[in-house]
Every structure is written in structure tokens, then in C-alpha cells.
């Protein structure tokens, strides 16, 4: 089996026995990236020098029999939205093109402490806003299974990197499905933990009450290993949960007895692709064959999830992104040009004796803000900022924002009821396999509607996992989504592992 098809767990065993060194393993991945990423575009930056240095340090630790962390020497790709001290952290946005944070995200610190090798930064939709990685300001990322198609998003770079064998593990963030959906579309395993399970400190915020960091891997076991390394309470994140982290790697292999799997009536309606529906129904059959019982459940407010999400997420985003104004960090417009423009505008209005126009004229400061932000943000980010500002503005707050918060609770209550009857909920991750690049350009609403199966978990704070469960007629991966109650990550991983062991979907890889 070629090295890039091996799982992280296998690599770790080889590293521990000395069969391979971290430097050799890292170099193999770096070579593969150098050879093939021009076709995929998964990485925004590859840190060969830094990665090899970290790998050498881990090798030295092993040689000197010093303690080595749980990810000892494994390359990990990181979505370019987690701050790393002194390193560019762009969020795939022009506005942060030159930003170098003077601090590490907690997840980055934990990866370092676990002796991971930070191999490079992966592409994403600008500020994680999107489901196709097409809104990146810098490059397009292609689906390794079909280079004409998107890898999904927003963590499309991380999903594509794992699918293409550029890294055994990767970190993503999931605000409305941004880990699970690209995992499904790229045929890898991706997981969004319970909100608060992993620290958000240093993760550039898109929608703070929904954002959560999570792992990608080729197998459920790998995802368990990466999650165990990054999860846990962080005093620097007031929304982080002060709960012990179970030993996921130890538990993941234990099958669940008397498992009750729920399937959601509302998930199998209109708009679901026939191949996807068949694959998911087959997966439910696999669970039955493993001794689980299947239960039809109802989530009556599920159909409002997209509407709820597209009020709450843009509202929070409009606020979180207000800080990019060209004053303290980030892009700033050319001031000379800006001042010349102001003078010209004023002169024109004065000549026309337009007193109203003069009163309304933006001051130098307001003009600086507006030019800097408009030059720095791409169209999707602008659209969401506008949408969120509108939903929070006087006269609309109650009808949109406040209403959405109430429907959010109803969505959560639906889940609470459902989890009284079942242990896990299984269903599709997207209505259809990966879309073509540019297929939905110019139709943002159609793009948003693809989030129908993923956003509920974020709204309710639940852990969710997506793993491969089939191929479409065109050979594209199809993902199975599993959901569990808050903090039931161990159950989720064990349930996923049961399915994975009974099937072979994760043993096939795309040809590049």
C-alpha cells in the first residue's frame, strides 16, 4: 500500500517501531504535495522547512527516548483560519493577506504539544463563508475525485488534502457543515465536535455561536486520535466546556450494543438525489445487519434550519467582521487616493451647490473604512455582512434575528426529544454529490439550500460526523452523517467505527 493511502494510526505505529522516521514521512508528503497539489490546489502555503524541522525534533525525541506526544511526528494540515504566531493567517481573504498574529490558537498550541508536524495551510471559502471553497480570494480547490468539481467547503482545502493523500490528518472548522460536508464530498472522515468541546481561541470567528474546530482523517480511528489531541477546556474561551476528555482512541474500537439508530422522516423528501438516498438507505441496512435497531423519527422544525442559520450566522458575522477596518490590522486603502477622491467629490458638490450632498459626504475616516473593507472582502463575505447587518438593524431585529433565535431553540428541542428515543441519528450529508466548479455561481440561495442537512447540528450545538458510504453513478463519494447528543463524541465515534469496519468505502482512493 503506498504511504499516502495508509492511515495516521498505521503511520504512528511505524513511527513508534522505528520503521519510518518523521522526517522521511514528512518528506514523502511534501514531495507528493509538490508534485500534485498544482492540480488540486488544497494548500495556500506549504511550510517545508518548518515541517521538516519539527519532524527532526520529534525524531530526536524518539532517539533520545524522551516522551513523545500522541501525534508524535504525524503531518497535520491546518485550515488557514487558525492563528499561528508569526505566520500568515489569511482566512483566504485579501483583507488579512499580510496579517501575522502575535499568538497561537489554542488548537495550534495543542497540536504542537502533541508533537504534530504542521505541514501547511489549507484553502477555504473566504472567512469560512461558503460550501465550495470557491469564495477563496486566492485560488480554486478541486475535488481529488473529479477535478472539475468542488471539494465542498468551507474546509475544502483540508478535505481535499486528506483525500488526495497530501496529509494523513487535517484540521477544519465547521459553522454550518464546513467539516462534515467537504468530508462527505471528498470521501474522507470529518467530525464537528460538540460546541465548546474544542477551544475557539485563535480561530478567526465567522459565527461565534456556531463555529467549532474539528478533525479530518482517512478513518474514524484517525479522527478520534486527532480529536483527543485538540479537545478540552480552555480558560481563554468562555464558551469552552469544562468537561473531561474521554480517551477516544481507546474507546473508538468498542462496538455499541443495543444501538438504536434514528432516521429522520424529513431528510428523505423532495430534492434528495437518488444515488445519495440509495447509499444512505443501504448504510441504514448495514447498521441493522450489525444488530442495531432502526427508528423513524421526526424533526418537525428541520425544514426551517437553513432559514434560521442564514439569519443567525450572517448576523454574528456582520459583527465579527466589523473589526477589519484598516486601522489596527489588515488591509487599508491607499490613503492618498482616498483623500484626493474626497477632495474631488467635495469640489464637485460645491460647484453644484449641492448642500444635501455635502452633508451626506462620507468623512475621510468613513471613506477609509468603506474603501478598505470593500477592497478587502470578496462578494460572498460582503453579501453575508449586508444580510446580517440588515437582520440586526432597527425595525428588523424582532422579525429576523430574535425570531431565528427562538426557532433555534425549537430545533434543539426537536433533537432533545429525538435523542430520548435513539442513540444516534443517521442520514445524508448533502442532497447530492459534489457540484461542478462555477455551477451555482450567481445563485447564492441555491448554494445555501445545500446546507439543509448540516446546519441543524451547529444550531443545536451537537456533535456530528461524516464518513464515506458509497459512490454515485459518476463515481463521486457519498457521505453518511451521524449525529449524537451533546458531548456524546465517544458514542458517535464508536458508532461510526462499527459501520466503517463493516464496509470498505474508506479503502479506495482517488487517482491523481
Amino acid at each position, binding site marked *: 500500500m503506498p504511504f499516502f493511502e495508509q492511515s495516521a494510526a498505521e503511520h504512528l505505529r511505524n513511527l513508534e517501531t522505528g520503521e519510518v522516521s518523521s522526517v522521511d514521512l514528512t518528506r514523502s508528503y511534501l514531495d507528493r504535495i509538490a508534485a500534485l497539489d498544482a492540480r488540486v490546489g488544497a494548500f495556500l502555503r506549504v511550510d517545508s522547512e518548518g515541517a521538516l524541522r519539527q519532524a527532526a525534533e520529534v525524531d530526536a525525541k524518539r532517539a533520545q527516548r524522551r516522551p513523545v506526544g500522541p501525534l508524535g511526528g504525524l503531518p497535520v494540515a491546518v485550515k488557514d483560519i487558525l492563528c499561528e504566531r508569526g505566520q500568515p493567517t489569511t482566512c483566504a481573504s485579501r483583507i488579512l493577506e499580510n*496579517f501575522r*498574529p502575535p499568538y497561537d490558537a489554542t488548537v495550534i498550541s495543542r497540536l504542537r504539544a502533541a508533537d504534530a508536524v504542521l505541514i501547511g495551510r489549507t484553502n477555504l471559502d473566504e472567512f469560512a463563508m461558503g460550501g465550495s471553497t470557491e469564495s477563496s480570494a486566492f485560488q480554486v480547490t478541486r475535488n481529488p475525485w473529479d477535478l472539475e468539481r468542488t471539494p465542498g467547503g468551507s474546509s475544502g482545502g483540508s478535505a481535499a488534502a486528506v483525500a488526495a493523500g497530501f496529509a494523513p490528518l487535517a484540521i477544519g472548522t465547521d459553522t454550518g457543515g464546513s467539516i462534515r460536508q467537504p468530508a462527505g464530498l471528498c470521501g474522507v472522515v470529518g467530525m464537528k465536535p460538540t460546541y465548546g468541546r474544542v477551544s475557539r*481561541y485563535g*480561530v478567526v470567528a465567522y459565527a*461565534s455561536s456556531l463555529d467549532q474546530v474539528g478533525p479530518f482523517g482517512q478513518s474514524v480511528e484517525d479522527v478520534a486520535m486527532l480529536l483527543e489531541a485538540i479537545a478540552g477546556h480552555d480558560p481563554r474561551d*468562555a464558551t469552552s466546556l469544562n468537561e473531561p476528555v474521554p480517551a477516544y482512541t481507546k474507546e473508538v474500537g468498542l462496538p455499541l450494543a443495543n444501538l438504536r439508530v434514528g432516521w429522520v422522516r424529513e431528510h428523505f423528501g423532495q430534492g434528495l438525489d437518488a444515488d445519495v438516498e440509495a447509499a444512505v438507505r443501504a448504510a441504514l441496512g448495514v447498521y441493522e445487519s450489525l444488530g442495531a435497531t432502526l427508528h423513524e423519527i421526526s424533526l418537525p422544525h428541520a425544514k426551517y434550519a437553513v432559514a434560521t442559520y442564514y439569519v443567525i450566522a450572517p448576523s454574528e458575522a456582520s459583527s465579527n467582521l466589523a473589526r477589519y477596518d484598516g*486601522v489596527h490590522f489588515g488591509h487599508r486603502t491607499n490613503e492618498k487616493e482616498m483623500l484626493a477622491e474626497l477632495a474631488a467629490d467635495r469640489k464637485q458638490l460645491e460647484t453644484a451647490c449641492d448642500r444635501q450632498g455635502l452633508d451626506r459626504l462620507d468623512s475621510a475616516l468613513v471613506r477609509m473604512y468603506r474603501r478598505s473593507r470593500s477592497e478587502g472582502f470578496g462578494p460572498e463575505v460582503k453579501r453575508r455582512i449586508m444580510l446580517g447587518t440588515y437582520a440586526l438593524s432597527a425595525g428588523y431585529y424582532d422579525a429576523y434575528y430574535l425570531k431565528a433565535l427562538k426557532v433555534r431553540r425549537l430545533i434543539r428541542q426537536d433533537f432533545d426529544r429525538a435523542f430520548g428515543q435513539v442513540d444516534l441519528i443517521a442520514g445524508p450529508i448533502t442532497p447530492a454529490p459534489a457540484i461542478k466548479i462555477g455551477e451555482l455561481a450567481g445563485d447564492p440561495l441555491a448554494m445555501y439550500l445545500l446546507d439543509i442537512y448540516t446546519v441543524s447540528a451547529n444550531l443545536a450545538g451537537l456533535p456530528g460526523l461524516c464518513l464515506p458510504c458509497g459512490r454515485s453513478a459518476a463515481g463521486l463519494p457519498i457521505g453518511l452523517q451521524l449525529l449524537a447528543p451533546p458531548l456524546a463524541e465517544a458514542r458517535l465515534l464508536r458508532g461510526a467505527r462499527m459501520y466503517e469496519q463493516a464496509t470498505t468505502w474508506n479503502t479506495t482512493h482517488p487517482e491523481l
Partner: protein
Amino acid sequence: MSETYTTIIGLEVHVQLATDSKLFCGCSTRFGAEPNTQTCPVCIGMPGTLPVMNRRAFELALRTAVALDCEIPAFTKWDRKQYYYPDLPKNYQISQYDLPMSQHGHLDIRDPKGAFATKRVRILRAHLEEDAGKSLHDEVAGKGDSLIDLNRTGTPLLEIVTEPDLRSPLEAKTFLSELKLLLTYIGVSDCNMQEGSLRVDANINLHIPASSTDPPRPGCPSDQGKHTIATPIVEIKNMNSFRAVERALEYEAGRLWHEWQETHRKLGEVPKLTRGWDDVAGVTRGQRSKEESSDYRYFPDPDLAPVTVSPAEVELVRGSLGELPAALRARLQDGFALSSYDADVLINQGQAVVVYFLEVAESAGDAKAAANWVTQDVLRVLKETNTTLDSLGLPAARLAELIRQIKLGDVPGPRAREVFQAMIERRVDVAAALESLGIAAVDESELIALASKLLAANPKTISDVRAGKAQAVGALIGQAKKQNPNIDPTRFREICLQLIETAL
């Protein structure tokens, strides 16, 4: 003029809470540092950073709210108030909107000179929020750039909003003094206006009796059945002292009256205006306000957890407050016969000094003397040596002993201050201080003997006194002091006069 209208005033006071670190990060709150030397990724609002609330800030806010007799709701949360300004790096301020941590309290004010009757000023709400930074303008350069200093960004503030219950600039000033007294007394803020730890904005308008020329507007419900007309409300900013608040309000009341006579514009007919106080010129000036700036788009901050407070916790805070200034003032005046002035001097020094005073007064059995010693001598030494009562080395019991011995005549009055000083410097009791100074109390027989001796040697004094010039005895006092520095001149004078009289 005062009969023609009523002045209606409400205040918004921002108080900086006395924490070591900022509200959401570990940066120091120390005043006066070089620009941008007390900032970190969190208070600069850098991408990915998150706020975590300072427990002490919440406790101090709660303490204040309880001291103001506010209701403390069981649940409170934090909201983002959104507006763009370069000294607000996130372009939103973390504040509280619809569920503040406290509301509906009050503070009683009174005027010792009786200019107004004692009254209750209602507190609408008090909420916790973060401060913004500072924009420094280079006045010389005029047009150039502004420099942004974020040292103050994120400092914890309590915003206290009163109902429009104040009826004169003097009441407003008195309210502020009483509030400052309370806040400094309970130790939640130093209320230093020069350093910006107490800031005041005032809302003012006039209520004018409706006359036949101003009948109620038909169809305007707010005018119906009312006998007064309200003028538009003006908010005044930039007042840097309590005196400035009083002056600005006096000026603005006059200006509003003048404006009313000219325009007859009523409340609701023009948007609320903001005016800045120019202390040098003694006038308020209009400030430009942008129409859209009022849409703050408040929403709950997703980064911060709400806070719940139980009734038991509120009672715990109430219990820890002890006696508050108003009650204490009453007790000092009624129970200890202190003047309102002396009582306030003591209370202004804070709880430790008050407790010390009470101990001295009770133990010495003389409140007036205790007040004099504490407010004059003890406070002077504390100030001169820049020390605290704890480290002064003069326990209340020793000061009480000194006062008692002076009264008994065991410590000669004129040398009492020397004894006091020696007690502090050597950290000793009265007896040891007397010994170290070589002071022995002069008893009555010694005084009589000395007086007789000096009178015998100065017959002119006797005749002068007999001729009605009692002050002639003064010359003898000087001579007596030379012979025995410990004599009590008052007593000595009395003895001399007595001897002259009895010798008649």
C-alpha cells in the same frame, strides 16, 4: 425666572471599577502609561481572540448595585453595541442592553444648607461594560492624523443611569458628590475625574407651564390633560468636574429657556441634540451627530456566558457592605453630635478611618475630641507620611488613652501634639511617650506655688488686673512657661486671676 419653568435633569455616570486587570483580558488598568503599552491581542480585538470576564469586575458592579438598592435580576447577559470608531478596535462595545445586571435603585440626597429638601433620586439601571480607547488629536498640526491609544480599551466601567428626578444643577452636583462618597466608601472605584475614572453626561430639558398661548396640541396625546410643556432634551458632554456639571447645567437651562421663547419647539419636534461643555468659555456648543449612528444593532454577545445571581448571593453582598454613608452620617450626627461637615470628612476617608474613629470615640468617651484628633492630626500624618492606618502604629486604643489623659490633666494640653507625635514615631503608649519627652504632669499645688511666686515678684501685674486689664496676666504665663514647660497655661491663668481676686 425660576418660577417660570422647572428644570428636569437626568444623569448618566460612567465609573471605572477598581480592578487590577481589564474586563476581558489580563492587561493592567493602571493610569498614565505610555500609549499602547498596556494592550494584548484580546483588547486590540485581533482576529480569533475571545473575551473572558473578570470576576472581580462583576463583584464590584454587584456591590455597587446593591449599595444603590437596585433590584438584581436572577439572569443577566452581555450584548454587543455596534458602531465604528477607531478607538473601539472590534467596532463593537461589549455592554448590556435589555437585561442589565441591576435596575430600579435609588440614592437619597440632601443639602446641608437646606437649598432643597432631602429627596430620593431613582436609579433606572446600572450595567457593566468595557471602556473604549482614546483618540489623541494633534491640535498644532490641526488637520493631520489622529493617534489611537488603546491602553484604556477594555477597562471595566459601570454605567449608572438616573431617572430624570433632579430639579436643579445644585441637585445634580449634590447627587454626584453623594454617589462619589458612596462608591469610594465601599471601595468600588476611586472616582478620580481627572483620570477619567468617573465621567458624567447629563440630559436636561425644561417643563414650562402651559399658558393660553400654548394650548395642548389637538391630536397629540402627550399634551392632553397636562399643564406643562416639555422642551426638547439636550445631552451635555465633556464636563470634567462636579462644578463643571453644575455650571454647564446652569448655562444650558438658561439657553433652553431662551431658545423656547424664540422657537416654541417642543419635545419630539426635533431629534435629541448633543452639546459639549466648554469650561473655559463657560458655554455649551452643538455637536454634529450622524443620523445613522443611533442604529447600534445590539445583540447578545455569543462569546460570553450569561451570569445568574441568586437572592442568597445578593444578601451576602448586602451583608458585606456594612453601614453605608447616609446611615453612618446620620449616626455620627445624632449619636456623636458631629457636624455634618465633620461627619463627611470622616466618611470621605473611607471605612477604615470611620471604624477607627468610632473606636477612639467610644473608648475615649469624647466624640468631639476624637473627631478633632482623627480628622486633623491622624489624617495629616497619614497624608504627610503617605501611609495607611494599619501601618501608622497608633492603635485606636492608644489615641483614646491620650484623649482621656489630656482631659484628666495628666497630659499637659500644650504638649499633647508632641506626645501624639512621639507615640507615632516611637510606636509607644502615652506613658512611654511622656517619659521619653520628659513630661511630667504639673499638679495644682505646684501651679499655685508658681503663680504666687511670680505675682509676688510682679506687683504691677496685680494692679493692672485690678484696674480691669486681665490680659496683663499674659506676661506671667510666658515667664511661668520658661520655668516649667509642662504647665497648662489656661489653668495657670485662671489660678493667677483667682489669687489676685482672693487677695483683695
